[in-house]
């Protein structure tokens, strides 16, 4: 896609982002309960104090003005104070974000490796036991609720075998200096290899749980895309050229099969964001997802609002990535 095409595609996002902001704004603005009371919590306050707080929060202004203020604040990442933490929402979210990013990336890697690997294998060994087994596994994989799968993993690897930790990100967190916030990276930067393996052990089960459904889906997409590619004339012609089987599979067939697969993967990465909340809750993972779930129960609306908006924006950008990736991989679209 040409740079101009990318700009055009970005401009198309503007109305979508505006619509998302409207939905998120009204989702919270129309929520029952007085934000002032929630903000105050158990603290006592006079009516005057309440009024001034109401004014400070902009709640005494008309709805459309409040929306414009919300838009302006959202654009600058300003979402007010988190009720519960009594700190800026932005700060609270930024603290939790690296954990969620690390978990999501790990799940993504697992899903891509397992999904594409098994998909290719199943297509190449079509109708063999490995094809049948992975097809059945994929079917069960998409039919299984993530939280239940996570619990099964905990039962097996943590409770019964005692091989992996049940929850958390790392055993001795304080020792790792902050660089990227991703513990796997930070521990390596600090050359703390014991901590690295500890973080890895903590990450394994949540990442597998989060990646399962996506791996299953990718496996199905890859398999059918590979089968389609392998039936094409260009594969027969490539065979007639006498090039190696590996080259035919991985260069000729896979390069074409990856076009739909990568597109689905980029879109599904957005779905991982939703899965975060479930998996972080199951494994006590201190990320954004669990923060949102807790925020809902503590009626910490500014926090929930900001997080929902953030998730939606990331999701929209991932969909954009899917389009761009598709264009990059498919020469016929590129020019």
């Amino acid at each position: 896609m040409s740079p101009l095409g990318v700009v055009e595609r970005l401009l198309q996002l503007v109305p979508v982002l505006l619509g998302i902001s409207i939905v998120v704004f009204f989702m919270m603005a129309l929520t029952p309960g007085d934000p002032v009371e929630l903000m105050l919590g158990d603290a006592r306050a006079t009516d005057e104090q309440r009024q001034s707080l109401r004014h400070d929060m902009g709640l005494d202004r008309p709805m459309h003005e409040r929306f414009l203020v919300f838009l302006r604040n959202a654009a600058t990442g300003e979402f007010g104070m988190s009720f519960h933490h009594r700190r800026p929402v932005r700060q609270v979210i930024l603290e939790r974000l690296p954990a969620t990013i690390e978990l999501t990336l790990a799940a993504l890697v697992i899903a891509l490796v397992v999904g594409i690997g098994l998909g290719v294998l199943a297509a190449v060994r079509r109708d063999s036991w490995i094809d049948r087994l992975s097809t059945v596994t994929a079917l069960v994989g998409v039919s299984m609720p993530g939280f239940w799968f996570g619990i099964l993993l905990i039962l097996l690897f943590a409770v019964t075998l005692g091989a992996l930790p049940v929850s958390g990100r790392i055993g001795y967190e304080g020792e790792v200096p902050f660089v990227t916030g991703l513990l796997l990276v930070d521990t390596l930067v600090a050359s703390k290899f014991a901590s690295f393996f500890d973080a890895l052990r903590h990450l394994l089960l949540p990442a597998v749980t989060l990646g399962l459904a996506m791996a299953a889906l990718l496996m199905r997409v890859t398999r059918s895309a590979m089968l389609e590619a392998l039936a094409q004339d260009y594969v027969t012609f490539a065979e007639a050229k006498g090039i190696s089987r590996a080259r035919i599979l991985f260069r000729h067939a896979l390069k074409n099969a990856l076009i739909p697969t990568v597109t689905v993967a980029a879109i599904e990465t957005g779905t991982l964001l939703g899965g975060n909340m479930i998996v972080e809750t199951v494994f006590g993972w201190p990320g954004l997802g669990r923060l949102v779930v807790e925020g809902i129960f503590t009626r910490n609306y500014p926090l929930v609002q900001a997080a929902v908006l953030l998730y939606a924006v990331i999701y929209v950008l991932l969909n954009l990535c899917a389009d761009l990736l598709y264009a990059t991989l498919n020469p016929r679209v590129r020019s």
Partner: protein
Amino acid sequence: MSDPALLAIRGLRTWFTTRQGVVKAVDGVDLDVLPGECLGVVGESGSGKTATFLSVLGLVKPPGRIEAGQIIFGGRDLAQLPAAELRALRGRDIAITMQDALTALNPALTVGEQIVETIRAHDRGVAGPAAARARAVELLRLVGMPEPERRLGDYPHQFSGGMRQRVMITIALSCRPKLLIADEPTTALDVTIQAQVLDLIATMRRQLGMSVVLISHNLGVVAEYCDRVALMYAGQVVESGPTRAVIAAPRHPYTQGLLRSMPLLSDPDRPIRPIAGQVPDLIDLPEECRFLPRCPHAADACRHDIRLLPAGAGRWARCVRIAA
């Protein structure tokens, strides 16, 4: 059939097992390709032309299978050759161009990569990437591609139909094969470009001293470019011989019918008469002449196993009337 054939196919049977029954796409084909010659293989679609030569290359895919026969090339039977040896031979000794370059070239890879990988597959280690690239440029220039260096980085869809065909010919010729199988090289092309591509193949044949099998459903094209011709009908060769002799005096009723169904430039007023009837279903064929239901000379003798019989100088025909 003379002995020093480059490729000798004997009794080849390639069958496809389907749910409806066994499709005998190739059923007892005997064919010779002589060194340096251009052999035309003519037949309607479904007559087994392409299946025969995919069998030669070992590229018949399940449910298809070579059931019987020998494919002698360079003293070895390709039908018995281990897969690795067959692969080494494909593209190096025997190359093929397919009907439609648009589907035969990989849409996701540059044409440069598709040419270079062929060269490197057979020149293992000898030609480095740079040398292989230089050779690809040279070959593209040879087939008449303008600005070959620049176009190496282009994808197949960026070429015109004629240029794509040239790319495919380049790939086929990249390792100087002894035999080129050109499968309907012109069907996917505009009429104006057809002659260019056929001339290119003829030129390259002379330059490289290779043999060419020109598969076509167009007897006119074959008459113009081929030394010898073989006609196929329902999975069998029904007549073969020097092109001129066959066209001047066809011996098999199918060849005769085919010629009558074609317009002649020399005699445009001659009435065109298509062959009556239809090509038989290739499932459950009886052991009789395949052309029997459509043949104007059908007789009881045709109901027995019909073989290819000598029919004059270098000519063969599969018809009982030859022996009589």
